[in-house]
């Protein structure tokens, strides 16, 4: 029966190892990501322009560009990203569970999400509002004319609640159908299962242009809510949050100072001390954040500044031809404003 004793000894050892393993100390996200060598980024795969899958299976879009930018900050390599496509319903648990390091998936910044849901928002990368998409032949002018209509939307979103509030305030009945993702919403709307689709204006516009015949739809001018979208990270990790925050601000500051992918090398020799600090030629701004001192230069080289990313994915260089609107720099009358790099 020595076998049994051996077994006992082995299992005791096993449990000891387990207990020891459990007492490993909590490491910050930045260290975890650096050690892992790859960034886990939660994205959308169904919103053309923001996050979508190309036929060859690559992730592209405005939100995806920020994943690449963060990877540039940490590794100086935009390809070191593992994209985790998430539905609206999955995205928060993925962040809570630590499956992803950052959520860059058209997520609205709200108080309850920042508080109770256990995430921390970083910076608004896109100022949006909830809109309503209808078919032109319906001849509708305003949202209030849609009393009694059926709306399609995506489940687990702020839009689901906003539209409910909108009609509850006016004491009007309506019907809301919720789908798992934008594809489900759009195919039901296309088939006239619902009279209107409601979501963030950006999503609706992107989806409208992805239709076979975009001109039969019209995105109504009214907005029924504020939807500031931006990357979010897990709660209570200020170092990691700083990395994401300053990655975005770096891209904004670069645009403001006129640093582009094209003129980056020339700009590095620019005498302006502000530009020199931004690009890490002088100062220790990057080191203070725990990343490469040249991190902004790396972002610009790999991804481009905010304006370039916007134009490429959503603006005049894309098929969506979105104007900057609220997303213009503060110097152009928009809301985009980066704190000083100092």
């Amino acid at each position: 029966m020595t076998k049994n004793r051996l077994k006992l000894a082995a299992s005791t050892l096993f449990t000891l190892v387990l207990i020891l393993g459990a007492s490993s100390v909590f490491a910050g996200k930045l260290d975890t990501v650096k050690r892992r060598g790859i960034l886990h980024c939660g994205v959308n795969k169904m919103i053309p322009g923001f996050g979508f899958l190309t036929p060859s299976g690559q992730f592209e879009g405005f939100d995806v560009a920020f994943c690449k930018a963060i990877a540039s900050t940490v590794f100086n390599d935009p390809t070191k990203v593992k994209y985790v496509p998430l539905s609206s319903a999955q995205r928060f648990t993925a962040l809570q569970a630590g499956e992803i390091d950052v959520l860059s998936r058209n997520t609205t910044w709200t108080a309850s999400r920042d508080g109770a849901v256990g995430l921390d928002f970083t910076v608004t990368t896109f100022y949006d509002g909830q809109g309503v998409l209808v078919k032109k032949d319906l001849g509708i002018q305003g949202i209030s004319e849609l009393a009694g209509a059926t709306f399609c939307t995506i489940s687990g979103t702020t839009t689901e609640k906003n539209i409910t509030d909108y009609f509850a305030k006016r004491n009007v009945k309506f019907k809301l159908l919720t789908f798992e993702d934008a594809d489900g919403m759009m195919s039901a709307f296309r088939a006239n299962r619902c009279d209107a689709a409601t979501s963030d204006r950006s999503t609706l516009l992107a989806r409208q242009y992805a239709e076979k015949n975009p001109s039969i739809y019209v995105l109504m001018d009214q907005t029924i809510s504020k939807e500031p979208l931006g990357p979010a990270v897990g709660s209570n990790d200020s170092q990691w949050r700083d990395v994401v925050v300053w990655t975005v601000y770096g891209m904004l500051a670069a645009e403001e100072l006129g640093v582009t992918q094209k003129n980056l090398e020339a700009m590095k020799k620019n005498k302006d001390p502000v530009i020199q600090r931004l690009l890490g030629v002088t100062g220790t701004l990057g080191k203070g954040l725990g990343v490469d001192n040249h991190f902004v230069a790396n972002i610009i080289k790999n991804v481009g500044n905010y304006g370039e990313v916007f134009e490429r994915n959503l603006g005049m260089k894309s098929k969506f031809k979105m104007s900057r609107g609220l997303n213009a720099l503060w110097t152009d009358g928009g809301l985009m404003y980066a704190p000083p790099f100092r």
Partner: protein
Amino acid sequence: MSSHTVSKNMMILWLRKNMFSSWRSALLSLGSLWLAYLILVPILVFVVHDANWEVIVDNIHLFAVGSYPADQLWRVFLNVVLLMGLIGGTVATQTTMGIKSASLFMLFTACALWIVIGGNGSDREGMNAINHYFLIAGLGLYLLGYTTTKKKAFSRAKVFGIGWLLYILLSLILLSGFTGNSFLPKVTNHLWGGLLLTLLVTVVGIAASFPFGIALALGRKSELPVIKLFCIGFIETIRGVPLITLLFMGQVLIPLFLPPALVVSNLVRVMIAVTLFAAAYMAEYIRGGLQALPIGQNEAAQALGLNRVQTNFLIILPQAIRAVIPALVGECIALFKDTSLVAIVGLLDLTGAAKAAIGQPNFIGLEAEVFMTIALVYWIFSYLMSIYSQNLERQLGVGIR
């Protein structure tokens, strides 16, 4: 002339006997003819005339392997070739399967696997010829596997225990590769997709759940109350909830249960959930086999002086499992179909690829084409497995009592 009338008369006789034997039968025949017409004609018209199959042709890469890098596709092809050889060997263990049905099986399998091999040629120049070599090599290996297994009379246990297990390990290594290796560069598993991923989740799920299921079944029959209670609780809990709940639990709970430093990928979490699910069902089938065994087997083994472990593994289990093999194959088919649910938790398996293809701007509104295609692919594989299962049933004589 006369033979013509004879055959015509035969046909009328056959018709009268099989379709119009009474007025009620005639009515039923006409009714079902009408029903078949109603269903089949629109489908045929659609398939031949209305459908736009471009969505399938353009996305064949996505359907077959997901985002697997194009320049590394030979690894997938090689995998498929090996699989063909193994299937050949597996078919050869079927003594009830004649040469004719074996070759038919080969033809079907080849057609199914062509989707992975041949189909990919369309979007890469230069790969076309190579693809055909892979296909020929696959057919060759099928024959080789078939004949060697037949000649050497390998037992089913050998083919399954050694062949399939070795294959699973080899294919996982081949597909994932190593970091920094130039010959087999690392392809992280979030790039795997399509039919490849569907088959992979199925095969790994079956292989991992089988031993686990045996342990659970034995535990449930155990006379030790703690172990017995635990196994009953585990089996009944898992069987009582839908698979989708387990998949979501895998998504949310597994990362929470593990320390932050230990990150398991989405694919692994899905595999864990699928394995736990399948194991509970397998355990119940195996328990059925255990219960069917006469108690004398146990007593005889004890009388021979075998200990508990020896009794279970040498006497009881082989007989119990043999009795429920068809049910276990049925569970494998169910598992194969159930893998489609992994699309809901964000994997790009065959169903996930279909959803992605429908979302592409160029192919919006082509749901019918896409779902028809993947339904056909799923059907071919399930049907092949069910033919195999029916053959097994015949060979083992389980169905005939």
